[in-house]
């Protein structure tokens, strides 16, 4: 007689918290009244607000409700030329001649004013970009102010930074920034450039111009000599006009690897110095001996911070097989508890996707992931009717060759892969054209240093993730770009060293 086996009952030791019913938060929205947004912005050139020669303006919207916030000028080639001339003039006339200690004081002054207007800047950042107010308030704005404060102090100390060399400013720097950290990226670019004695033409991202324009108001208020910092708005063509302008000495770009490569080709045959801070597909590695709960929290922060619109996001999770089941379960539970919705609400964890086109890119990859055979899991949270939204999502059963494990998605989408040995995971983690950041979670010190040494990336977080500081150099290996921003190493991209 055949023995009939009783099917074992699946036992689970976890008690799931029912966040949807038992726990809910009342709305706690930040007030829009603390911020002033003008209906229209001109270009900030030569210390004044100038009408664009293009005569064109375009709207910037709130991605959380698709409502128009303001309209900004579209700078064309002639506007860029005007800005570069102003920057050149300011370089020759004021900035080059000014004693470094005085230059420093201007930058300190900007830092202080950013702090003074922190609340307003945070609100505008959240309105224009869709990121949770908690992040713009606690991270973007204070870090931007700190960046100015940090580099201000370097201005009159450059002779200590490069032994046996004389550091000289380059001249006019053309700077192009992305939409994921609009104010912070402006600070990352402007602070080291002007502290080291250069003057600047900065172009904001098309979808997020407002905080940089607010920064222009601060710079105006700080009484910086006219033309030292010029801030212009526009799209790709405006950026191209900056890159191709013959009187620019330095190009600093943060954005996609594709555009970075175009810039590298465009500056061929010129003497423009270039730094590129480009895309990434960071590996975040969890070993079985890691403090699992902290690791899960780190992974969540690593990929869902700023809706995953982070070039150094930990978008590839490698979990050691022995703990994979446990980690995936905890991750699923955790994303269920993330609050998605109104970016201005102080309880919100995940805000709006920055733009319609970015949402389409993310949705394309969700489709690709499923087609490639990976299993998709997304939070069951409701999404607002208007605006651009994406639930926090993860893929399991991902193969190393899958596009969702190779290409940058730039959204709240985590690809989970597993491994058995150290050598295997190093091989897999480094098997990427990118090399911006990486993470490792383990309680064993010697293993941490083995991993951090062998991972080919510019920033390695061990038992932490997505941490930034003005004194900490940031930048990539391989196709994630070259040059560093932040810290002592962030000075060199804006200097030439003379014997």
């Amino acid at each position, binding site marked *: 007689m055949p023995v009939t086996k009783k099917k074992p009952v699946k036992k689970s030791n976890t008690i799931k918290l029912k966040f949807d019913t038992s726990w809910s938060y009342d709305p706690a929205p930040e007030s829009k009244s603390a911020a002033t947004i003008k209906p229209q912005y001109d270009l900030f050139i030569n210390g004044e607000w100038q009408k664009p020669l293009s005569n064109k303006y375009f709207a910037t919207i709130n991605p959380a409700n698709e409502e128009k916030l303001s309209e900004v000028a579209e700078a064309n080639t002639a506007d860029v030329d005007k800005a570069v001339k102003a920057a050149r003039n300011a370089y020759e006339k004021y900035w080059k001649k000014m004693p470094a200690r005085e230059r420093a004081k201007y930058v300190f002054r900007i830092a202080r004013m950013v702090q003074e207007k922190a609340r307003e800047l945070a609100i505008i950042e959240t309105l224009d970009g869709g990121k949770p107010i908690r992040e713009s308030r606690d991270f973007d704005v204070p870090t931007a102010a*700190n960046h100015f404060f940090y580099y201000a102090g370097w201005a009159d100390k450059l002779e200590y930074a490069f032994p*046996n060399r004389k550091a000289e400013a380059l001249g006019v720097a053309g700077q192009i920034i992305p939409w994921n950290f609009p104010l912070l990226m402006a600070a990352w670019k402007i602070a080291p450039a002007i502290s080291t004695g250069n003057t600047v033409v900065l172009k904001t991202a098309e979808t997020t111009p407002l905080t940089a324009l607010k920064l222009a108001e601060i710079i105006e208020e700080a009484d910086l000599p006219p033309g030292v910092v010029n801030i212009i708005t526009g799209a790709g063509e405006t950026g191209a006009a900056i890159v191709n302008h013959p009187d620019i000495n330095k190009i600093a770009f943060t954005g996609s690897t594709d555009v970075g490569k175009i810039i590298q080709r465009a500056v061929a*045959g010129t003497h423009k110095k270039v730094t590129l801070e480009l895309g990434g597909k960071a590996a975040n590695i969890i070993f079985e001996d890691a403090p699992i709960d902290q690791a899960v929290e780190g992974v969540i922060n690593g990929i869902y911070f700023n809706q995953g619109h982070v070039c150094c996001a930990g978008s590839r999770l490698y979990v050691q097989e022995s703990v994979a089941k446990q980690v995936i379960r905890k991750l699923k539970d955790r994303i269920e508890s993330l609050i998605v919705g109104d970016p201005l609400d102080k309880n919100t964890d995940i805000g709006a996707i920055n733009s319609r086109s970015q949402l389409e890119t993310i949705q394309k990859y969700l489709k690709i992931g499923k087609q490639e055979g990976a299993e998709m899991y997304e939070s069951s949270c409701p999404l607002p009717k208007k605006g651009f939204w994406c639930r926090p999502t993860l893929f399991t059963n991902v193969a190393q060759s899958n596009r969702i494990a190779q290409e940058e998605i730039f959204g709240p989408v985590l690809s989970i892969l597993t491994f058995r040995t150290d050598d295997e995971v190093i091989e897999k983690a480094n098997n990427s054209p990118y090399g911006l950041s990486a993470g490792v979670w383990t309680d064993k010190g010697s293993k941490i240093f083995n991993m951090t040494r062998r991972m080919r990336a510019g920033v390695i*977080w*061990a038992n932490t993730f997505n941490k930034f500081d003005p004194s900490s*150099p940031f930048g990539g*290996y*391989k196709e994630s770009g070259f040059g560093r921003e932040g*810290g002592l*190493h962030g000075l060199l991209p804006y200097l030439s060293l003379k014997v």
Partner: protein
Amino acid sequence: MGKTIINKSSLSISENGLEKKTSSKRLEVLKTYKIYIGGQFPRTESGRYYIPVNAAGKKLANVCLSSRKDFRDAVVSARGAFSGWSGRAAFNRGQILYRMAEMLEGRKAQFIDELIQQDATKAKAEKEVNLAIDRLIYYAGWCDKFQQLFSSVNPVATSHFNFSVPEPTGVVSIIAPQDDSLLGLVSVIAPVIAGGNTCVVLASETKPLCAVTFAEVLNSSDLPGGVVNMLTGKPSELVSWFVDHMDVNATIYCEKDSITQKMMREKSALNLKRLTFYDKVNWYSEEGQSPYFIMDTQEIKTTWHPVENIAGAGGGY
């Protein structure tokens, strides 16, 4: 080919091994100039050769005219050697660079001789060889010091320990200077390997002899095979592959040719190679050596780790 010196010794050895008076002449053994890939001395896979000529019109040798395939083989060797070489203790790399200087010192006469064949005066040849030896000593000393100079512990505001260190960028392709065929060559290779990179080098087209002989010095200096790979041939044929290859991380070029420089920058965008032009460097001067040359093929890696209980985190243990 080469210089055929007829040895007019009046002594020679008879069949039974005894010296006897004779007027017979000794024919010099000519050297075959081969390329150096993965610690071996193959001929070019292409089977091609070219004959560089000195100012007097004298043919120097049948030199390998390396192909794109040779370059690809060399990159495979260089990539294979990278993990081992970059993983070595910096102190050990310093010892090996010092050993290279020792080996070069021991073969000084041969290098002087080759430089004279390639149009140098005796005095200039001696000076170039001496400087090349000293340059290796200079970079041998830097191997375990530049990291300290260019590293930093960063005082971040959060409760983290954070530090930045230089790390080698990977495989570097080098088009060595056309002039200063020994000193220039040594000056561009030494900082690259002192920093833990591996490289593929294209020797001076018109003056390739010292480069091949230098490869023999490398081969007897405990330098692992594949760390330096030496090709001879024409930059006009090979430069575009040197800057095009997807498994090369950085490229160094030393000529002023602006058309080539433009082409190189365009092609380098393919995988965002780090591109350095040493077109204004006088290798004989003080500015021909510095740790900043090492830094040209280094990346900066920043590492973060939390620190428990600082900055008023309260109680703790």
